[in-house]
């Protein structure tokens, strides 16, 4: 009897809280759909530059697959490789064959090597024998020893910082509302923007610490591959944290309790996993690509990976920093507007 009463009460509470209900049913579907779209996508199509003095080899490769792009000059091919327009450069200058892989993305590496091997196998015997003689694989970035963690590590750093800062800042801003202190503050001459900026700065101090600790741990303790500057990685993670911070405080305006704040995770945080560099965006369904542009983690994850694996400097990543800064400012402005709900001034 008492159990029945409890069950009825829980059912009633659930029905009242339509959002939690929707979250239970819709969120898993959303995520399953995303995973499906990400994993059931097409194979990676590598782009391979070919430089060769053997006209016959060039013709064969050209006709065998559209993946092969013929270059006249070796320097041009390598230029495109470093600009990530190509995944690999195949140089056939008998008797030696050299494959230079871009190296940052294991999926692309594997796909390129498979494509080259497959194509060379179809060649007439005398060519294959020659090309097999001195085949050498070089890496522009990374190396054959690069572990999976070296590739996903940079993404994980960005993701965890984003995730935790989002949740913690959101919940604490929410508490300000549920404990009545927000109202108390709104009875003071404090301006709405001052409140938002204060929050970002206050939490910002901790996010600086957090970024420094996580990045240093990954590099010095977990021994993750690190080609670029430690400071730049900390800068990017800090920018990501501030974006998460401003987004968390913004969204807390649309939650009435901690549970509802947590419900934003599958809606806001999880989708970003798929676009933040863990999976190759190029292989996703076409319409998903543009979606990655509105995800802060896309820019953060990409920049962290480029610094850690490719050793990119400030010149290469400042665009990403600006985008993250833009996101933060946008979220902060929206938060100032959202606080209008509580006080007009």
């Amino acid at each position, binding site marked *: 009897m008492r159990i029945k009463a409890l069950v009825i009460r829980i059912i009633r509470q659930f029905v009242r809280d339509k959002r939690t209900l929707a979250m239970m049913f819709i969120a898993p579907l959303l995520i399953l759909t995303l995973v499906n779209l990400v994993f059931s996508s097409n194979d990676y199509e590598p782009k391979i530059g070919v430089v060769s003095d053997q006209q016959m080899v060039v013709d064969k490769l050209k006709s065998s697959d559209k993946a092969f792009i013929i270059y006249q000059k070796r320097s041009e091919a390598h230029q495109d490789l470093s600009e990530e327009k190509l995944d690999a450069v195949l140089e056939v200058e008998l008797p030696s064959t050299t494959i230079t892989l871009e190296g940052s993305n294991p999926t692309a590496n594997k796909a390129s090597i498979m494509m080259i091997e497959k194509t060379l196998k179809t060649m007439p015997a005398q060519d294959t024998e020659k090309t097999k003689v001195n085949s050498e694989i070089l890496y522009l970035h990374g190396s054959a020893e690069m572990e999976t963690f070296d590739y996903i590590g940079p993404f994980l750093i960005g993701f965890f910082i984003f995730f935790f800062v989002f949740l913690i800042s959101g919940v604490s801003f929410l508490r300000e509302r549920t404990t009545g202190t927000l109202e108390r503050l709104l009875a*003071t001459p404090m301006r709405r923007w001052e409140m938002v900026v204060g929050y970002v700065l206050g939490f910002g101090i901790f996010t600086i610490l957090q970024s420094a600790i996580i990045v240093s741990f990954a590099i010095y303790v977990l021994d993750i591959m690190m080609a670029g500057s430690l400071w730049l990685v900390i800068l990017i993670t800090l920018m990501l944290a501030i974006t998460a911070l401003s987004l968390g405080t913004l969204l807390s305006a649309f939650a009435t309790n901690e549970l509802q704040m947590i419900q934003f995770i599958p809606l806001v945080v999880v989708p970003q996993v798929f676009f933040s560099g863990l999976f190759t965006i190029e292989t996703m369904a076409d319409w998903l690509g543009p979606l990655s542009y509105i995800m802060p983690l896309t820019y953060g994850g990409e920049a962290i990976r480029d610094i850690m694996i490719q050793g990119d400097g400030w010149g290469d990543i400042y665009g990403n920093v600006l985008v993250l800064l833009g996101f933060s400012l946008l979220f902060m402005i929206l938060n100032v507007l959202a606080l209008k709900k*509580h*006080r007009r*001034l």
Partner: protein
Amino acid sequence: MQSVIQVKNVSKKYRSHQVLQNIDLTVNKNEIYGLLGPSGAGKTTLVKMIAGIEIPTTGSISVLDSVMPKLNTMTQIGFMAQSDALYGELSGKENLEFFSSIYGLKGQKQKERIDQASDLVNLTNFLQKPVNQYSGGMKRRLSLAAALLHDPKILILDEPTVGIDPVLRQSIWDELYKLSKSGTTILVTTHVMDEAEKCSQLGMLRDGKIIASGSPRELKDNTSSTSIEEAFLYYGGAHHAN
């Protein structure tokens, strides 16, 4: 007498729910104005509008001759909300430091004000304790101290003495009288009828309407009641008869 708070024909609606209807009230300088009414009558909504947190749906509110909400005027108001809006992780002192800094108090002045305010509410010895270890009454008192820090011209207190023991309640009222003599105007809400007797002016609020106003003596005399409670019943009943 100089009027400090003027509420003119104010109504407040939340969606279709009419919380307040055609409220008119004037609070004069140095007065202790009591807003008396049962819970749900709209007291909190009314004082929040006067404090500048909420906006009336129709009508206007002016405080110290400027139309609310106005940030400048809000520096002259001390507001103590119904819930103890305090940071539980922080100590009493840290809470007071935070709220006084928002009003721009710093250094020696800040220290003096914190000492005065905490002395007033008898919390000097507990200032180092984290607030989540405070009792309910102590939290109320700290809330009150926080509202007094910046020496406001107008003090708005929403149910200030709930959960405070009678001895301390008396001492808080003594302080309110002192503040009022020294020039502070006080607006206080209460649902406790005997507390209403302590105010110099009263507004009786029921179902979002002012059903009567005047000094406690006037209200009692007009209805030939012996207590405020009787007077309230009279006006409430009369309202229903209409």
